[in-house]
């Protein structure tokens, strides 16, 4: 909103408050993600990174504040509008979520079958291209139970990209991958992002991959954005929270513990 130079915001979270029972997960949280960029969201486990993604997909609604994607208010959409919106979205969930009773091929083909009237020949070409890109064209007849965790993530990636979405959300795409697969997935995310000029949001703890891939990185701590900027800026940043996170230090302003009573109180109770 502020600067309309080349970076129009594609996703805008404005003063979002999100609660789970008595706990406030996101507290007056604002985040702006420019169109066409790869944005990394970092932060300690349980801070609410997946929650942010679920607000963007409309799976969760904020208690107050606004979620705007591509000029549309996601937080007030009807079910029908949400369905329309989600057709333009690619999502890779934290645990792959492949359909267990469909083969790899059918998993990737499902969104195409559902939302386009393409012929079987074209569907096949489309699906094979995507599977080839993640290096799993040979695995098309396998079932999810026959895949390793890393293979399943790559199939999920192919499935998220099969309809060439305008926005792709990745929840921890590198977890459980071997170094070669990490590099492959990394390249792939960067490549599709540039080739299709789509916007990518990824949640990850992998600082090295962020340096290579992200245009912008955001660190969440205790319901707020603690720091944001290009990876280079964050590496230079001297604030304690950023230092702790980028260097993986156990102690510092970022709490390791889920909110709790004093330990001695619990032990003596």
């Amino acid at each position: 909103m502020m600067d309309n130079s080349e970076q129009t915001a594609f996703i805008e979270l404005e003063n979002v408050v999100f609660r789970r029972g008595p706990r406030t997960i996101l507290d007056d949280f604002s985040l702006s993600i420019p169109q066409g960029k790869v944005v990394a969201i970092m932060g300690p486990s349980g801070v609410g990174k997946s929650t942010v993604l679920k607000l963007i997909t409309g799976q969760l609604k904020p208690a107050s504040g606004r979620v705007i994607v591509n000029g549309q208010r996601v937080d007030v959409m009807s079910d029908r509008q949400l369905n329309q919106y989600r057709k333009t979205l690619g999502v890779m969930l934290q645990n792959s979520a492949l359909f267990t009773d469909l083969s790899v091929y059918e998993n990737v083909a499902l969104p195409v079958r559902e939302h386009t009237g393409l012929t079987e020949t074209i569907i096949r070409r489309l699906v094979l291209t995507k599977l080839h890109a993640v290096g799993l064209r040979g695995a098309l007849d396998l079932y999810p139970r026959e895949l390793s965790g890393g293979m399943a993530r790559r199939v999920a990636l192919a499935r998220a990209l099969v309809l060439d979405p305008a926005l792709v959300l990745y929840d921890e795409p590198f977890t459980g991958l071997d170094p070669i697969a990490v590099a492959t997935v990394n390249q792939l995310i960067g490549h599709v992002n540039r080739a299709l000029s789509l916007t990518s949001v990824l949640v990850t703890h992998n600082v090295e991959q962020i340096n290579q891939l992200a245009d912008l990185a955001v660190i969440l701590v205790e319901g707020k954005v603690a720091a944001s900027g290009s990876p280079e800026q964050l590496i230079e940043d001297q604030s304690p929270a950023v230092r702790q996170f980028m260097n993986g230090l156990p102690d510092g302003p970022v709490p390791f513990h889920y909110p709790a009573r004093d330990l001695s109180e619990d032990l003596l109770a």
Partner: protein
Amino acid sequence: MTGGGIIDQTNRALRDIGLCGLFLLQIVGRLRLSTRQWGEVMRQLYFIGTRSLVIILTSAFFVGMVLGLQGYNTLVQFGASESVGAVVALTLFRELGPVLTALLFAGRAGTSIAAEIGLMKATEQLDALELMAIDPIERVVLPRFIAAVLALPMLTALFNMLAVLGSYLFAVEWTHLDQGLFWSRMQSVVDFQADYVSGFIKSVVFGIVIALISVFQGYTAEPTGRGVAIATTQTVIVGSIIVLVLDFVLTALLI
């Protein structure tokens, strides 16, 4: 999760019945009768049918033999042993066929439907469908529901057939009852309308009830291993109780 007071439990039960009813409306509202939907229904029907076939046919055969044995032992004292076929058929068509098949079906097919849907929920497959703008109720719940509703009456018919066969083998092969007498007594006593159709109506109602409970338990399960375990047990417990209660109500209405 401890039981809570009786008021609490009643409240919860009433709420669940309400939610179940709403869920049924949601399912039925998505009935399209498109080729693709029916293709999926047929696929589920095949799974559900083949899964339940062995247990239902084996049980039916032995139930038939026991009925034949008990019936013969009683009837022979009155010199009416040739009526054993008729007695067995009446018991089966009116009561035991629909009820036993429904109970076995809840334990075999109902639990696996509940577990399957619950597991899909726990592994975020249902979320993934929603995120692809695919309706999980239409895609996952509806085909299993319709398939289960269709399967139970068919399985009941098979149960009845096998049980009659069991009693026939006992009466004719074992006690050497005249087989012409066995069949003709059965034919003259059993009334298609009063006996067979009323049993069929029961099995249709039981099918709807068990199908609904299974998909509801699976769909509303807590998305964890424990949640799925609770959903499957609840399917058997609630399903069996409701079948037995409804059996009484339906018998009273149909007689």
